[in-house]
């Protein structure tokens, strides 16, 4: 049974000729422990242009169930008897294009196994690329160039310095993973430590990431996170890095606080680009010592500085509510996840949502057709497509439902209902 390790055991020609039923068997073999040998899948290869399907990562128990659907705006789907069972809980899925979605596992202690799924030529779900091991934890992630990137800051490097470790997962190369690190001590030149939050692809071989600039963390402080006391709570920094983690530029401004939404150890991205390539840098003003209201600044496409003429005081528009997460919908529309209470801490609930249009500086609560904030027991990752936001929401009284949010009217309507415990993510794949 022993065979030498063929490090390039992906047989792309072979993969292309396999049909769905063979895959079904192959998956069954993969799922069964101690299964016999099995030629693995490679990337789906060229785009046959046959069609497209929506991808649903549903969850139940300690497993993930992958489904496809032709429509997210109506109908029902179920994981009872359906779906590819993956015996791990993937709460984070990163889309980079329409070929595949990458499932990242956030294991607190042990390393996790990442996967990516796409469609074969018949439109059936198949693994795309290899499974990979995420050895370092990660607290922020995103898509960049041909990669899915994860990052964790506040790591003790072998030379004793504090740094951040990045994983670059190469989707064009079977998910080959490259690990790079960068020292984050004195990152902004003021003796402070930086923690990275968010990955925004600039399209020119660089990405932007928000910086949480703080004193070094007291190892006994607890509570998660890699950040110590923030002594510059009224400033925002954003760094431009390339794929080798060379620091290209650092942007700074004093009109808003740092651009990161925080919960426990997680740093949620609060930077995102619009369809025109302008990057909006938000700040939910998480830090309680900041005097700056929650708001946003802009870095115009290709600019080396913040646009000094642009400032959006979102907190004023929201009636004092601050926000935790930001997602781009379409054009310059963004969806905000807003704290439920005016006063909040690290674990305060955030289950109300608003649409902002950045150029016009408008703020609209998403309330019509959407569950009330105290009904929402879980949300998945929203998925922007067709100029709309598709947002999986679970309430105490209804099965997980994809709500379709129209950014122009800031109204929602219930779409596809999925019989499951929860829905983690959505995507659309072409095949």
């Amino acid at each position, binding site marked *: 049974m022993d065979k030498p390790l063929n490090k390039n055991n992906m047989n792309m020609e072979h993969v292309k000729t396999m049909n769905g039923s063979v895959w079904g068997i192959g998956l069954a073999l993969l799922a069964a422990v101690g299964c016999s040998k099995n030629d693995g899948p490679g990337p789906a290869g060229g785009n046959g242009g046959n069609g497209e399907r929506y991808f649903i990562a549903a969850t139940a*128990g300690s497993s993930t169930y992958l489904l496809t659907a032709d429509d997210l705006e109506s109908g029902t789907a179920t994981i009872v008897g359906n779906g590819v069972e993956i015996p791990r809980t993937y709460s984070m899925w990163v889309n980079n294009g329409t070929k595949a979605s990458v499932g990242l596992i956030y294991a607190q202690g042990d390393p996790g*196994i990442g996967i990516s799924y796409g469609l074969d030529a018949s439109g059936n779900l198949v693994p795309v690329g290899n499974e990979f091991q995420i050895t370092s934890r990660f607290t922020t992630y995103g898509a960049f160039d041909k990669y899915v990137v994860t990052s964790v800051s506040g790591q003790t490097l072998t030379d004793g310095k504090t740094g951040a470790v990045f994983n670059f997962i190469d989707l064009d190369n079977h998910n080959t993973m490259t690990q790079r690190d960068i020292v984050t001590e004195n990152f902004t030149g003021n003796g402070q430590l930086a923690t990275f939050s968010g990955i925004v692809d600039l399209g020119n071989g660089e990405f932007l990431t928000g910086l949480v600039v703080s004193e070094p963390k007291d190892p006994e402080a607890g509570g998660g996170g890699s950040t110590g006391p923030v002594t510059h709570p009224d400033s925002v920094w954003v760094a431009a890095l390339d794929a080798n983690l060379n620091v290209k530029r650092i942007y700074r401004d004093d009109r808003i606080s740092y651009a990161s939404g925080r919960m426990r150890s997680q740093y949620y991205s609060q930077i995102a680009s619009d369809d025109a390539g302008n990057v909006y840098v938000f700040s939910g003003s998480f830090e309680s010592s900041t005097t700056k209201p929650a708001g946003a600044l802009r870095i115009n496409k290709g600019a080396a500085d913040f646009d000094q003429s642009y400032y959006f005081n979102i907190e004023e528009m929201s009636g004092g509510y601050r926000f935790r997460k930001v997602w781009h919908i379409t054009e310059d529309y963004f969806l905000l996840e807003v704290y439920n209470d005016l006063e909040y801490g690290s674990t305060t609930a955030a*289950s109300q949502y608003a649409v902002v249009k950045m150029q016009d500086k408008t703020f609209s609560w998403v309330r019509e057709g959407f569950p009330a904030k105290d009904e929402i027991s879980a949300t998945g990752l929203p998925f922007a497509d067709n100029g709309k936001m598709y947002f999986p929401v679970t309430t105490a009284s209804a099965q997980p439902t994809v709500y379709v949010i129209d950014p122009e009217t800031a109204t929602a309507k219930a779409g596809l209902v999925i019989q499951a415990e929860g829905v983690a993510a959505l995507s659309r794949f072409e095949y």
Partner: protein
Amino acid sequence: MIVGNFYVNRLVLLVLISGLMWSFVPFSVRAQHTSVRLHGMVTTEEGAPLQDASVYIEGSSFSAVTDAGGVFQLQVPGGRHRIVCTLVGYRQQAVSLAIQVGGDHKLDFVMVKDGNYHLQEVEVVGKSAIAEVRESPFNVVALDAKSLYNSTLDLGHMLDRASGVKIRETGGMGSSMSISLNGFTGRHIKLFMDGVPMDGFGSAFQLNNIPVNVADRIEVYKGVVPIEFGADAMGGVINIVTNQRANTYLDASYSYGSFNTHKTNISVGHTTKGGFTFQLNAFQNYSDNDYKVRTSVLDVQTGNFSWEEYWVRRFNDAYHNETVMAKVGFVNKPWADRLLFGITLGREKAEIQHSNLMKIVFGMRERSGTTVLPSLSYEKKNLFIANLHVRVTANYNRNYNHNIDTAARQYNWFGEYRPTRYLGESSYTLGKFYNDNASTTANVTYRFNERHALAFNNVITGYERKNADRVAATDIYSSIDTMRRANIKNVLGASYRYQHNKNWNTNLFGKYYYQRVTGPIDTSQVAGSTAYSERTESFSTTGYGLASTYFFRDFQLKASIEKAFRLPTDNELFGDEVLETGNTSLRAEHSINYNVGATWNSTLQNDHSVYVDVNGYYRDIKDYIQRLVEQRYGTAGYSNHGKVRNIGVDAELRYYYKNRFMAGGNVTYQDMRNKERYASSTGDRLSVTYNNRMRNVPYFFGNADAAYYIHDLWGAGNVLSLGYTFNFVGEFFLDWESLGNQNTKATLPRQVYHDFSMSYMLKNGRYNIAFEARNFTDAMLYDNFSLQKPGRSFSLKLRYFLIKRNG
């Protein structure tokens, strides 16, 4: 009953009243390995049959006890023997006999009353316990350890042979072992050693590293638990009864086996005429655990897993532990039937080969631990007045654990590695922490007369955990562990026993549970910062039950019921204050446990004997404590949400033919299902898993064994025994059965494996040589998803055993 300053005093020895040790002896103490059947009857001078008289061959371990008809059977080797008969209150009788090989020998004893009998009392305490087990109305299985002394089994693997019980291991020797009892696992089952809770004994002294030779027997109480075990054990308890022979003995063994496995065990004990006694038990286990497993392999350069699977050898999984148990004290004194001071010292070291998925491999992680466990036990019957029995035990345990993960490397299964720039293969730690535990048990029984008896039992257990080295815990998630966590639990039980007549007895009992927990709470009002302070909560509830049994000819019928509880843990009440918030309004999990059972035990035409035991059970579990994540509340927390129903049957059948052949087996089938209709604890969203079989629980399993004995092979008194065991666990799903495409389900495949053993005993068991082949068909075995257990293994064991009975 609660001692407020428990942790100031550390060890509080409550000299409360206590009582008769509730001990049960196996139904199946059979299979003597000798060549001639000696049988007969023990009667009074008036000719009335005497039950529970002990008949044995002097200087050997061969013994038997008379049944209700005064009848005993004993397998003895040919040759000249001195055969002794003893019974409380009667003078010892002894006969010297020359026994010819072949045929039956009949021998009757007529016992004469002894006015001065109390000196022999303790000698026969264990014997009269047999009567107790026969009359026990509880659903209890007792496994005899003595018949396994020539095997290399640890207590865990011995327990695996009990009906209704399945142990689940994550690997080879020293790997973590969990027990499934009638579908219950983890916190729902409590382990005891001689009636003392094992919770805090530490990983250096656990079922998977204690050899069977330490034990006399293991008792498994299913669902309905006598008050003597003061615990919130909703699923049942397992009690290991250690060897407490008041004789002079030496038992020494060494074994060597596959994967460079060495095991040594030495037991020695002596009791003087004056009642001074000491017992010493020392054992050692070592294994490289370098068995082969089949898995996909990480390419350390690309961080990708192969789709191919390879047979690879484990390379960072060596384990060893060393333990000494010593007891010293007095027996048979006017002021104590037994007063023993003991100390157990244990240590272990284990390399950690992989995470909870076998694919993820470590090359340098390891852990170590030590246990220090002083103990005290006192026992006196007829204290001050007749029929008032007391028993008190106390023990304290400090165990120390050390986890090491400092390598800046990423390994794969070929042993290759890539240097990384950060410390730790998983998460950097040099974490050290102490667990302190203490428990005291006081038990008193008073028998008013033949019919009525009362018993009280109180158990206090407490633990405290804190970090030994705060700075070493650099994993940001464990910082909260620098806070103290403590728990004191008190379980008070009372029972009334009514013996209507010789054939019918009933036990009615109640239990009062009290618990006080201390843990950290995050009091920070400032976003992004934490500030912990300590808080304390207390909790109490009451449970009750009834157990009854009726004897009819060769049958025994049993029925029992208990409303049983499992109290919330400090983590459930307080959360970890990092990822989970606490819920101090949690209720105890509870279950109504019903058992009915029937046993038929009969000897047919003298040569054939049959034992059949069938037990059915029903469990109705409510208020399951589950971890739920609710975004509108901001974070995860625990909630009483869940109902489970379990219906099952355990059956055991055994057959014996003379002293030459025995065969038997047991099978367990259970139907354990999620009966919670709603997915949410606050709304009416229906659960997609309602009525699904509970996930990741083995539900159909069993084993069968057969043994054949060749007597007087190459010499009188020598026995060659050949044994075979068949083991079976049905396939089950890792997650909910109805979900997902059935072709893609993660399953734990059906396990079938076979063990063979052969032992040769010389000189009536003084010298023993045993050979074992476990899993000899080299099946791939998994108790836990993806975690492969060892394949075929062989071992050879040499054992020397000498016993000299006192009196």
